[in-house]
């Protein structure tokens, strides 16, 4: 293994066959750590399933919910997972259309994270419903009784938004993987060959396919960006459309989107460190990329902090006494510890990202990213719970810390997410092979051009001119084909 790349996005001299070999190797022969992680995830999931069966049988009361706390951790967790899903879209779609090349080695797992966190988030409204067997009433299906859902309800918007977002991001993930599927088809044997053969949809890598592929990918990316923003805006309207103090806030949509990107970036950092370590991907997930991710996270953290402070200020200087009271209660009341955890993790911890030494120290970054995510989780909790605990009606004030059932389900959702992700990394390449090649190619090209220009200048100096060498033609994805 070559020395660790310090100052470049990637070592452009990586051979394309090595890229293939490294990524395919990461998908094969799981080591013991993988099985342990898988077992842990399944155990966590089992806790949640057992808790959910109990709750389904006996009712929502087993989650400890009560009159003021009609919603609690389930909705907070739902918002958390929806938020996390925004990172993949950010990396793959937003950075794609602004041509940020460094995204390429890491966007695949981020996108997978998007899909899986959406799949996790989508479960929570079902867990949360009192009569989940009637869930489909939220959908506008044609009923002979002429009954429609209530289109004024943000929950109906949620149903539309999440299902659209889930299907789009799954499609986006899949389409982005097609060229890689073809590589895998060509480099594997047995069932995998058949499996990837089907998934690559007859990809041959000719010009027309590449042209269509690029166009489709760009189109989907453009489609996904407003969708992602709208999804979290709609989730925020679950709160903002209500009349409750601490929820009825006009800055909620951008605040939620910023928070979503924030937690997503933090999650990417966590997974980055984990994958880099376990799959020995130091050459692909370079410290340079980590630095860039950290800087992006820091920028988003500051946006989020700003919006948060704006919200506090608006509440403080506003005339809504209920809002103001709630803010004071949050900071000094029974939830104070949680509130200050959120402030610390969300607003203070990101400043560690200003230090290059820390940014390049993976164990620190693991801790920091987990702290950031903890901050974002409790942020969601601090949105849901205190409003319900200390709303307009003081007679119904009550503080809720949940029951074992509720915590088990919340905890188990991480198992479910982890399980999906662990299966993913062994079935699909968590690093996009063709795009890493693209990246190397571009870098090489840039360097060559630079050198060429240098030579040119030197020659010009020497008074001699010569024609530049042609760049290697062809598409990087075709390598090995």
């Amino acid at each position, binding site marked *: 293994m070559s020395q660790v790349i310090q100052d470049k996005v990637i070592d452009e001299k990586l051979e394309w066959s090595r890229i293939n070999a490294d990524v395919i190797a990461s998908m094969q022969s799981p080591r013991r750590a993988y099985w342990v992680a898988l077992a842990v995830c399944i155990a966590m999931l089992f806790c949640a399933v057992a808790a959910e069966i109990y709750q389904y049988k006996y009712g929502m009361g087993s989650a400890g919910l009560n009159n*003021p706390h009609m919603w609690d951790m389930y909705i907070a967790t739902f918002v958390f997972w929806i938020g996390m899903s925004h990172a993949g879209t950010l990396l793959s779609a937003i950075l794609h259309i602004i041509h940020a090349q460094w995204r390429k080695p890491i966007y695949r797992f981020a996108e997978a994270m998007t899909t899986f966190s959406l799949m996790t988030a989508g479960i929570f409204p079902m867990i949360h419903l009192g009569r989940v067997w009637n869930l489909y009433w939220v959908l506008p299906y044609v009923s002979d009784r002429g009954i429609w859902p209530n289109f004024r309800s943000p929950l109906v918007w949620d149903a539309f938004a999440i299902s659209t977002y889930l299907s789009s991001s799954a499609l986006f993930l899949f389409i982005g993987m097609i060229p890689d599927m073809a590589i895998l088809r060509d480099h594997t044997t047995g069932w995998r060959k058949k499996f990837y053969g089907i998934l690559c949809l007859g990809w041959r890598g000719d010009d027309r396919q590449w042209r269509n592929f690029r166009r489709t990918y760009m189109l989907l990316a453009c489609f996904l960006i407003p969708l992602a923003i709208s999804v979290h805006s709609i989730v925020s309207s679950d709160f903002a459309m209500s009349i409750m103090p601490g929820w009825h806030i006009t800055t909620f949509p951008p605040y939620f989107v910023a928070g979503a990107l924030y937690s997503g970036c933090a999650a990417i950092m966590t997974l980055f460190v984990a994958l880099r370590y376990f799959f020995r991907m130091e050459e692909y997930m370079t410290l340079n990329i980590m630095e860039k991710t950290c800087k992006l996270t820091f920028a988003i953290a500051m946006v989020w902090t700003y919006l948060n402070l704006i919200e506090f200020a608006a509440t403080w200087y506003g005339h809504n*006494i209920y809002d103001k*009271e709630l803010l004071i209660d949050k900071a000094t009341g029974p939830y104070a510890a949680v509130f200050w955890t959120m402030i610390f993790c969300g607003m203070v911890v990101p400043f560690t990202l200003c230090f290059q030494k820390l940014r390049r120290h993976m164990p620190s970054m693991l801790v920091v990213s987990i702290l950031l995510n903890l901050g974002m989780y409790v942020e969601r909790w601090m949105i849901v719970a205190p409003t319900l605990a200390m709303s*307009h*009606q*003081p*007679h*119904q*004030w*009550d503080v809720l810390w949940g029951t074992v059932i509720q915590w088990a389900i919340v905890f188990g959702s991480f198992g479910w997410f982890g399980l999906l992700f662990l299966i993913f990394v062994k079935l699909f390449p968590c690093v996009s092979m063709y795009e890493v090649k693209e990246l190397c190619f571009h870098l090489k090209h840039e360097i060559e051009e630079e050198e060429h220009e240098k030579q040119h200048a030197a020659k010009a100096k020497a008074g001699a001119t010569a024609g530049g060498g042609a760049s290697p033609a062809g598409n990087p994805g075709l390598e090995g084909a």
Partner: protein
Amino acid sequence: MSVKVNRRKFLKMLGWGGAGTALAGCDMPTTVTLEEGKEEVVSYLMPEEYVIPGIGVWYASTCTQCEAGCGLHGRVREGRVLKLEGSPDSPINHGNTCMMGQSGVQSHYNPDRITAPMMRKGGNLQAISWEDAMAELSKRVGPSSGVDGKRVGMVTGTISGHQSVLVSELLGQLGSKNHYVHEQINTSVWRTVCRDMLGDETPKLNFDKARVVLSFGADFMGVWGSPVHNMGEYAKFRKGAERGTLVQIEPKMTMTGANADLWLPANPGTEGALALGIANFIIDRGWNLVDVPARIRGTLKQYDLVTVEKVTGIEAEKIKRIASLLSERSPSLVLAGASVENQENGYDSVAAIMLLNLIMGNVGNTIGATAKFAEASMQAKQGGTKDLLLLAKALSDKKLDVLLTYNTNPVFTAPDVLQVQAGLANVGFKVAFSMFPDETTLSADLVLPIHSGMEDWGTHVAAYQPEGAVMGFQQPLMEPIHKDTRGFGDIMLSLLKLRGSDFAKFDDYYSYIQTSLLNMPSSIVTSTGSKEETWNGILQNGIVKTKGTTTPLVPKLVDVRYKPAANNSEYPMHLVPSARLGMWDGRHANIPWIQEAPDQIAKVVWGSWAELHPKKAAELGVKNGDYVRVTSASGSVETQVYVHKGIHPDAIAVPVGQGHEEYGRYAKGRGVNPLKILNPIMEKRTGELATYATRVKVTSVHKTGRLVKMGGSEVQVGRKFVRTISSSVFQRTEKEV
């Protein structure tokens, strides 16, 4: 089976009863009748004769949940009674009900009712047949039993009407004079003072005429007298041309206190001194409307403001204000309730308080005479705790061989030191007539399950008859739920028949009541129309209006001999065994609605608590939910604390009603019973148990838990839920428009 009300007869009666009150919609055909005697599953397409599916029919009856005797209308649908409402015809409750009346149906349908007679065999109560039970009764108290009548006793709650006649008759037949009438919640001392100073035990209280009500611990809207009636009167008092002002002085805020314009806690047991101080001030200023003899005037002199302030802990300024209020806004009404009556000096305190009524000329004005039911044997025999003490004494002295218990639970309400439970072992044969497996019932040797108030016939003459002498008529609202229960009256009749008597001619209690009511002398009722019409009228109204006898009040000043109770340094606190509307004396602890209905003040549900003033709580280092031990010379209880300012700092209130050792699934093992730790102190003049006189010490046990109560915040936090305006504004905006 002595109950001869078969279904057809039952329908006939009900049909008549409901004829006048049935809802419209009787256009539904009821063509199919059911063959009698067959028990089958029959669809509602083939209804029973009196059942109109989907149509509720209202029948009039009388509430048996407490002694007030409110009139009821019960909604009956498909043969089941579903809902009780107040009878608008009743002069007692005027169509309203309280929570106890509302939950009458849960007494009736209670899952813990006794469904079969039980006899103690080898230490355990075992179900037996009615034949065996009656045979046993006959063996023990029948003519051949050789029982000594003088050693037979009966304990009941307040009892009136025909059942009272039957009880007296039975005891008379046996030659017994031991009828103990025990009511934990009573106004005995007040009644005695009224008798001595006014010449009438239960004078009519005209709240609507009073401009000021000064109440010394009388929770007249809760557990004092006739609460539903009083609440209706209270509304009139507040809504009159001028809004009346209520001043409440009591050691622990009751529901009435919560509605007061001025609520003050005097040092417990010193309310008499306060009344005398007020009287003294009034007379000093010459505000009294009735002259006071020099003899009393002399006694009053020593109650100057400084002394009274020192004794009672009420500022002199407040005493002056109350005195001037009584004078400026005459007529007033001054009342005394449990926290004054049930002190060692209860009688003297109440007399001192009654003095205020006398000198302010309230007698004959806000306090009037009531009509009494003409037939004395049917008037209410009101109970108190004196009989409990007598019973305890009789038990420990082994003076009883047979004890019959009905509608009271002395084993639960008696303090531990009276050793009622142990004393019962001295009684050879104890018979309990009871609906529920309460403590007393389960100590009996023979348990006879009786009908509920909604299955049985009965008549009730309320002790407090505010508007003419009426008799509440109770009729079955449905067929008995359990096949093996019997009416109390029926059992009494069969007992009477054992020795043969005038009552032998009656088939059952129903025919006895009917005959009796239809043959009431014209000195009692003016009968109009035929007997059938009269009877239908009674069934329809649930009320028998009678010509009562009214004796005018004779105010009589008695000597004031008030003496405050001595202090006790070992037990510095006053125990307030407070009672509330709903739970009453604990008899409703087996009703889930009552258990789940929060206490009106503390808002605690399903258990016991102890109320403490914040000052005292800080002293003890306890907060809401912490456990404290309340220790008297006679025992101790441990319960959670609820801290609020509506209590005297030297008092601790533990509510009565919980702490049942038996009494069904909803009551058993829940909370603590403060009555158990009362000291055996007697009120000096009346011999009642001075339940508020026990001194206790309170210690923290350093254990905490969550107090199960309704409501998160104790204050409105600046919200406008309950806004308050001053009565001067109210007078301007609403009265003078």
